[in-house]
């Protein structure tokens, strides 16, 4: 009896360690492949193929990009600007809405919640929305076309609402009202500071969305100077012309550009900041998600 329980316990331990280790390795391998490709000499990729470890170390991919960095830096700038604006504006609007929707004395909170929520159930679809943005709002080639569509998601508003109602006792708001604080002041001075963890979570969601977005550029932006970073990367991976433009602007090229390694170097440059920040922010993300999953 005792020995069988013991062996079962150790067998599950083994299973757990093996499964999780294999899953983790599989999660890392594609990153490794891209990273090693970005550090390998192009000739070596062409003759030997991509490999998990650079056979022939070289930085020529990165050199090609930084030889003429204007375009990359501009794409970085566009993404940086939209991420910053979108995240800050989005956080402000989402927390404000979440706060009003969890105020028990706001009589229409359920009606307003449903008005917001219904948009996740039924939509007009891509085409009417595309016509609206291009023909009626005339946002083609405007940075607002990259910022506005991702600004508010019903999911984040509902998440914030349930987070705030679980964090903030009604008595606190009541007593602040008795002390004569206005609705906005209560939000700004009391609710926001208490909701910091939730704020971190939605801030991360928004930042991720804006940083990783390529779709809005592909829909609404025709001017290459306003491409988001990821869409710029998409073009580098998918057409050789983008690499030529990158290396020698305006001059027709010699045929010997290090195409393959440049694609991978560009991938690493585009994902860099996320990889760098990720270990620091991951904790908050998990915490927020857990709260959302359990409470929501």
């Amino acid at each position, binding site marked *: 009896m005792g020995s069988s329980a013991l062996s079962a316990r150790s067998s599950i331990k083994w299973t757990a360690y093996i499964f*999780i280790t294999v*899953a983790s390795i599989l999660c890392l391998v594609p990153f490794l492949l891209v990273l090693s490709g970005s550090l390998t000499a192009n000739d070596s990729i062409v003759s030997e193929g991509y490999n998990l470890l650079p056979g022939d170390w070289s930085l020529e991919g990165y050199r090609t990009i930084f030889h003429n960095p204007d375009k990359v830096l501009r794409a970085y700038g566009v993404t940086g600007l939209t991420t910053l604006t979108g995240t800050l504006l989005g956080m402000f609007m989402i927390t404000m809405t979440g706060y009003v929707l969890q105020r028990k004395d706001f009589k229409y909170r359920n009606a*307003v919640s449903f*008005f917001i929520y219904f948009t996740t159930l039924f939509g007009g679809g891509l085409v009417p929305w595309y016509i609206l943005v291009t023909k009626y709002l005339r946002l083609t080639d405007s940075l607002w076309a990259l910022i506005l569509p991702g600004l508010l998601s019903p999911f984040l508003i509902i998440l914030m609402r349930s987070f705030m109602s679980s964090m903030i006792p009604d008595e606190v708001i009541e007593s602040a009202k008795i002390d004569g604080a206005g609705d906005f002041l209560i939000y700004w001075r009391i609710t926001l500071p208490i909701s910091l963890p939730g704020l971190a979570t939605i801030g991360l969601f928004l930042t991720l969305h804006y940083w*990783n977005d390529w779709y809005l550029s592909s829909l609404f932006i025709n001017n290459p100077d306003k491409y988001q970073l990821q869409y710029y990367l998409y073009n580098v991976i998918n057409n050789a012309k983008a690499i030529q433009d990158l290396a020698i602007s305006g001059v027709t090229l010699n045929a010997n550009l290090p195409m393959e390694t440049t694609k991978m170097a560009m991938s690493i440059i585009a994902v860099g900041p996320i990889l760098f920040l990720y270990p620091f922010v991951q904790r908050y993300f*998990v915490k927020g998600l857990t709260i959302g999953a359990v409470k929501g």
Partner: protein
Amino acid sequence: METISAGAAGTQTKEIRTRHRRKGLLYDLRKNRIMWLMVFPVLVYFLINSYLPMVGVYFAFTKFDFNSGLFGSPFVGFENFRMLIKLGALEKITINTVAYNLVFIGLGNAFAVTAAILLNEIAGKFFKRITQTVMFLPYFVSFVLLGSMAYSFFNYDSGFVNTVLQWFGMERQDIYNTPAYWPFIITFFYIWKNLGYSTIIYLATVVNINQDYYEAAELDGASAWQKIWSITLPLLKPTFIILLLFAVGHIMKGQFDLFYQLVGANGMLFNATDIIDTYVYRSLKVTFDMGLANAAGLYQSFFGFVLIMIVNFIIKKINRDYALF
């Protein structure tokens, strides 16, 4: 995850309710004007961004003309839909969308539940933290990077897969021209990207299970496997069923980014990989066939909505708390 309770709180007395009826929305707008002001931008946002396009479903019944706008385009009834069916496109993209989503739901949840339970069994704190961090990492990277990873694995000339095949003296494979491989590739990358995220959702439930159950089971001499089988899994069932139903409600909605970044405009693979979302996008941006794009889009929205209604009805029957509305 996302629940919403409709209807006002049922605890109000009759007297208060009649007073509310006398003092309607206009009164409330004045009384709570600050709060109304605070949600006003958001209401306008959704009105424009989400509700206005709903009017635009009318486009699906017209021969769209970009210059004459909403009501200037000639009305053609169901012509666009007829065309869509005649081309055989509708059937293909529907089957693909639903089939892929079923596989994603099944495998995605199975792997996530397994990972959550096994992570919970691991005692080493450091090992647990590192692996969880690594498994969650793919969720944070862009789909464009996914496309570049796939390229480095599968392209004919220098892809890693062909490198390995050559080591073993096997034939090179032209993967980007072989549709049969792609359901597996796309499914792999879907799970790769989402495993960490779904694992965290399940782990939140697993960690919160009352330890007394396990202690009681241990006294009865249950093995670790038996405990998982008779305690953890049954307690995960509610979470699982709800997530499953939500997913079924969204079965018409494909993972556009995933498919587009992996397959793109590669016509060779469309039979095996074209879903409603990629079809609509291509009709809009590549072939400029507004009629087909509109018809396919409305078809998706409409049946998606019907499905969600059905799913919500079922959830209500099971457990009112989890109902969407």
